[in-house]
């Protein structure tokens, strides 16, 4: 290899380096720009995350949970200026509100105080630190005051509210031992307590208990209390008697028949112009036929059957479970939910007894009964319209007896009202029934506020609507896309 060759080779190397400069620069630029971008992005994110993130977080969640409604505000305004209602929380003022019941209680009570023009004061006194507070609020030891409850006190009378009572809970979760609050009743509970303490109850209702009742009718008591009606339990016993102050007798969710003495007492009560609400269903005790209760009902020309209504019209069948269906309030065709209902029969043997059906099934319903021998549901083929609720009264009396009978507990039970809330058509209807029976004047009623309750109007969830919806959403729409796609493809393929 000559010197010249070496020289040109070296020159070539140099040339190569120089000529690669452009792509090197581009590569450098490319990598550097990516790195710079990542650094800037990280920087911006850290700024947003750490420094100004909180300021740029907005709470648009359901408002109104923590402020009192116009109904309450109007009532507070109507109170005389010298009224003084004390709300005492028997605890230290809760600080960590998030994810506890106090999240909705503490700020709302503050709002009561702020908007009441001094008529309401809210205090937090821990009875462990100041034991004298118990004696001060309840000198006669009537209320059995405990720590971690609220006491509403006015004119020497008190009402005790536990935070757990301030919410309604999802029925399903209750059965698993977990509480999933679905309704916020804080305002409704406190306003009712204030109303009742300042105004006093105007009427009295009694629940007949001790007959294997399905529940403790807490929800119905709340409704009564909201309507200015005090309520108490009337335990079944041999010496059963209906007190003279009874404005309304409620026999709801019993699972054993009443005793003979009760039968006599109730008929006597009705004879004197008593008002009654009776609600029994099928599924809590399918074999019970309630002969003595039916004797009382018979006095009003009514009866509950021992069968269960089976709905055959798909427009009336609700899809969740069997035997759940829609009943229609005949007066205004509002749909209500019924489940395992017994048919209520109407049979007037005297012209002065005026029984009438008020809630009915479709005219395609049949009844079934449980055959104990075979253990199967037997269907009666008699397809017709059945009554689930009925009303009866006497004609030509100054103070006539009145009675509402329901073949379902969907209007009265804690389970139902708890899971569907006080604004459900069924609850609204029972409120109307109570108002109708006990002429209560201008009541203050605060609705519950929904808490993450995604229930829709389930009376629309009939099996036919589910079928239609499934067909449209899962068959027609996808199929339409597939067909359009096929058409477009075939057309274009041969262009």
């Amino acid at each position, binding site marked *: 290899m000559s010197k010249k060759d070496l020289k040109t080779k070296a020159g070539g190397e140099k040339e*190569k380096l*120089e000529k*690669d400069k*452009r*792509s090197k620069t*581009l590569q450098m630029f490319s990598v550097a720009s990516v790195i710079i971008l990542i650094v800037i992005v990280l920087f911006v994110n850290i700024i947003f995350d750490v420094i100004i993130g909180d300021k740029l977080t907005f709470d648009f969640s359901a408002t109104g949970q923590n402020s009192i409604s116009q109904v309450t505000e109007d009532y507070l305004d109507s109170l005389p200026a010298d009224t003084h209602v004390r709300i005492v929380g028997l605890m230290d003022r809760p600080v960590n509100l998030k994810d506890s019941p106090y999240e909705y209680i503490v700020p709302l009570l503050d709002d009561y105080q702020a908007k009441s023009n001094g008529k309401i004061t809210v205090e937090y006194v821990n009875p462990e630190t100041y034991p004298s507070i118990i004696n001060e609020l309840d000198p006669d030891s009537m209320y059995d005051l405990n720590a971690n409850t609220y006491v509403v006190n006015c004119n020497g009378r008190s009402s005790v509210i536990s935070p757990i009572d301030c919410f309604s809970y999802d029925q399903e979760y209750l059965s698993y031992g977990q509480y999933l609050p679905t309704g916020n009743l804080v305002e409704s509970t406190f306003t009712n307590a204030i109303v009742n303490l300042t105004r006093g109850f105007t009427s009295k209702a009694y629940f007949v208990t001790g007959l294997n009742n399905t529940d403790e009718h807490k929800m119905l008591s709340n409704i009564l209390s909201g309507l200015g009606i005090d309520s108490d339990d009337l335990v079944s016993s041999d010496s059963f008697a209906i007190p003279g102050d009874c404005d309304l007798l409620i026999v709801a969710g019993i699972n054993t028949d009443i005793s003979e003495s009760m039968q006599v007492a109730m008929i006597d009560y009705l004879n004197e112009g008593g008002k009654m609400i009776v609600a029994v269903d099928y599924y809590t005790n399918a074999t019970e036929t309630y002969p003595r209760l039916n004797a009382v009902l018979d006095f009003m020309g009514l009866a509950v059957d021992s069968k269960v209504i089976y709905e055959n019209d798909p427009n009336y069948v609700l899809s969740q479970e069997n035997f759940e269906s829609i009943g229609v309030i005949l007066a205004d065709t509002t749909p209500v939910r019924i489940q395992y209902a017994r048919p209520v029969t109407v049979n007037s043997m005297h012209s002065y007894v005026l029984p009438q059906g008020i809630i009915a099934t479709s005219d395609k319903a049949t009844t079934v009964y449980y055959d104990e021998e075979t253990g199967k549901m037997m269907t009666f083929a008699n397809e017709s319209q059945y009554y689930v609720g009925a009303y009866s009264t006497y004609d030509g009396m100054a103070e006539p007896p009145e009675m509402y009978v329901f073949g379902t507990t969907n209007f009265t039970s804690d389970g139902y009202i708890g899971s569907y809330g006080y604004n459900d058509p069924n609850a609204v209807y029972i409120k109307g029934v109570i108002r109708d029976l006990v002429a209560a004047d201008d009541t203050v009623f605060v609705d519950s506020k929904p808490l993450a309750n995604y229930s829709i109007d389930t009376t629309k969830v009939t099996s036919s609507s589910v079928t239609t919806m499934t067909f449209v959403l899962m068959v027609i729409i996808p199929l339409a896309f597939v067909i359009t796609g096929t058409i477009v493809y075939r057309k*274009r393929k041969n*262009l």
Partner: protein
Amino acid sequence: MIEITNLVKRYGDKKAVNGISFTVQKGEVLGFLGPNGAGKSTTMNIITGYLSSTSGTVKVNGHDILEEPEEAKKCIGYLPELPPLYLDMTVLEYLNFMCDLKKVPRAGRKEMLAKILSMVKIVDVADRLVGNLSKGYKQRVGIAQALIGDPEILILDEPTVGLDPNQILEIRKLIRNLAKDHTIILSSHILSEVQAVCDRVVIINHGKVAAIDTITDLSKKLSGSSKLLLSFKGSVKDVKNALQALPGISGINERVSDSDIHEIDITVSNEKGSDVRTSIFYAMSKGGWPILEFRSLDHTLE
């Protein structure tokens, strides 16, 4: 119009383009001639901005392709070796998309497309799917695509490759038509094609420019060292002697002999510029050797 100086493109250790320089004048049709793999496509890709050169500059209409790419690209219509066609679109959809891509204003687009469609003769397939067209039609759609936006410069990379002879002739005719009002760079590995349509030719081999010349000069040079094929009846020896006496013939090789029919190659070195073929004919007729075939051998760079 286009100025290319010292273009180098390196792939790893290999230089696909190694210092190519040439210029293209306005209105010219430049042939880009070279065997496969010589760097024709790479050079074209660099001119059109698809690739960036390792070094060297390309100026289109005064705009450097690296510094003012958008300005430069606006002047160019490019048909790459593989026509960039969307097979799932109809011809018209595709050309409309190209109009959008080249930012052709909506006004007058229809007329422009109609003109292009009739120019490249694809009016009757305008509503057909590009994927269903024959290769010749696809090539035309490719050319139509390059014509959109009325660029001054057309760069066509092997526009006739893979077509049948009929289609080749039609495309050549089309290019000659386009040459009337476009500057065209056309690459090919077939000499006759370049001869048929180009004014000037750049021959490249192994990434380097082997020659730049006008077609007429090139033809002269080529014919200057061309070969002729002569097939005749008679004695090879006599013919050889007779022909070697003629001026401008530098060599004679015997190719095939079949009893008294012979075929010979005649290497011509015609420096004087006169045609040696006439004198060969007279020499043959004088000797009484009938000519059965007499033609010049084709030149390709393959």
